[in-house]
């Protein structure tokens, strides 16, 4: 059953002279409980693509055409109130930089609890109890006593866990993760990916993960989509794309992945690979 379908999405930003087409004719769909990874270099339009889903791209100045339907709701043509009902409750999002995506003036427990207070009108006390449970769920040790901490008292990895707890607390049907591990070091990255994967398995929610790192996406997502210059150049099952990439750009990306098998060889750059073509 299709949960989210995006059709013929174009996004255009006006520049001082002319305009920039950030996303060109992108279509994709996601079934309930499915997971989709969108990869591409920076500037390829992958973030813009999903940001439009939650109304994060301001129109105007940008222009958006195409359609996006989430469980029958037209995301591009619904009222602010309807969009607020979906945001944070049915679709949640986590961001790249956990250092700046938490409010420094609010205790973590209250930030995690806030969606419940708003969307479900829960009392402060109950929401806080739920928030502590959510902190345990995302693997924050000693959650009950750390609940009262301020964001700056947490490490990057812990903050990303707080963000995840916040996004997950109202049990969304779809989680959008925009480069959730880019700002983290490799060991923490592993843990966060495992956490997201595990939460997805346990709750049956769908997942869209954006990354510039093929390995990150491959470890979590069943489906994969590759974007270049605003165009979705390849789309398919993760295994198939990896084993049998059809588009030269995808092949290029795969080739650029450094391996540990051939020490002493130079790393391939994308320009080299694409230049050969």
């Amino acid at each position: 059953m299709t949960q989210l379908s995006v059709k013929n999405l174009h996004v255009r930003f006006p520049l001082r002279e002319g305009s920039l087409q950030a996303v060109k004719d992108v279509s994709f769909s996601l079934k309930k409980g499915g997971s989709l990874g969108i990869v591409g270099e920076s500037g390829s339009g992958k973030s813009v693509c999903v940001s439009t889903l939650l109304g994060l791209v301001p129109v105007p100045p940008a222009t958006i055409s195409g359609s996006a339907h989430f469980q029958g709701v037209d995301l591009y043509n619904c009222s602010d109130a309807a969009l607020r009902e979906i945001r944070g409750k049915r679709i949640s999002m986590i961001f790249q930089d956990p250092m700046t995506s938490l409010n420094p003036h609010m205790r973590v427990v209250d930030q995690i609890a806030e969606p419940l207070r708003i969307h479900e009108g829960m009392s402060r006390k109950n929401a806080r109890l739920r928030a502590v449970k959510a902190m345990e769920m995302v693997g924050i040790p000693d959650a009950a006593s750390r609940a009262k901490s301020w964001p700056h008292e947490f490490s990057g990895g812990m903050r990303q866990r707080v963000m995840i707890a916040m996004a997950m607390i109202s049990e969304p049907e779809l989680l959008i993760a925009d480069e959730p591990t880019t700002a983290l070091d490799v060991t923490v990255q592993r843990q966060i990916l495992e956490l997201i994967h595990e939460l997805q398995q346990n709750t049956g929610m769908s997942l869209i993960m954006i990354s510039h790192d093929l390995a990150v996406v491959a470890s979590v997502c069943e489906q994969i989509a590759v974007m270049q210059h605003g165009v979705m150049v390849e789309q398919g099952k993760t295994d198939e794309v990896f084993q049998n990439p059809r588009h030269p750009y995808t092949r290029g990306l795969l080739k650029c992945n450094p391996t540990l098998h051939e020490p002493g060889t130079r790393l391939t750059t994308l320009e080299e690979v694409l230049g050969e073509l």
Partner: protein
Amino acid sequence: MKKKTETYSLRRDAWRRLLRNPTAIGGLVLLGLMIVACVAGPWVSPYTFEEMDLLSANTGPSSTHWFGTDELGRDLLTRTLVGGRISFAVALAATLVSLVIGVTYGGISGFMGGRVDAWMMRIVDVLYALPFTLLVILLITVFERNLILLFVAIGAVEWLTMARIVRGQVMGLRHQEFIEACQVLGYSRARILFRHILPNILGTVIIYVTLTIPSVMLLEAFLSFLGLGVQPPMSSWGSLIKDGVGAMEDFPWQMSFPGAALFVTLLALNFLGDGLRDALDPRREGES
């Protein structure tokens, strides 16, 4: 657990941090004493602020007149305390106006951005451009001269700068990721502005308030000097200092006592303001 969850609002936390700051507490106590003295003092005093005694005009500080007397033989201590009431009232009114109107207006303007912001700021520009003195003279000729009018006039100009400062700060915060995160979580605009953005600029706002209060007290003195503010025989710190300056060479106490009262109050306010700024920033926890 139940008990613990009750006790961690930002306000209570800030209060706890403030109590640990001796300078701020010193300022708070001093300010409290000044206010109590100004409010209660004139009742206790054996003199009234307008009672003249020409035989003891221009006498220096003594056991009967602690602060001495002025050229009409009025008790300077009583006049200073009564004048303090006016100065505090003006400061309070202007602060309230600039906080309520300035912060809300600037917050909305900066947060909405675009055309709304442009229009709201043009209105502020227009109000800025009106000559203040003319505005007050106009107000006073149209309506009767009274204290409320003085408050309105001062309040009307004091919120403008606050609105601009707050707008600038809000614009800086609006595109931070945590504000985007709030949008994505489906919070209403009002909630994002008042619960997430404004607490983050409280420090700046408080600093600006501590700067506003002295300037408002001086503004009141200026208006009184022009004959638009407090009228004799009523006194305010501004008018007392002005009168005292004229007699400074012969009777220096006539200027120094009201001046000292103003000085102590402003100093106390600055200490308190600094302490409040630190106390309201959770990132300063643990610093001394």
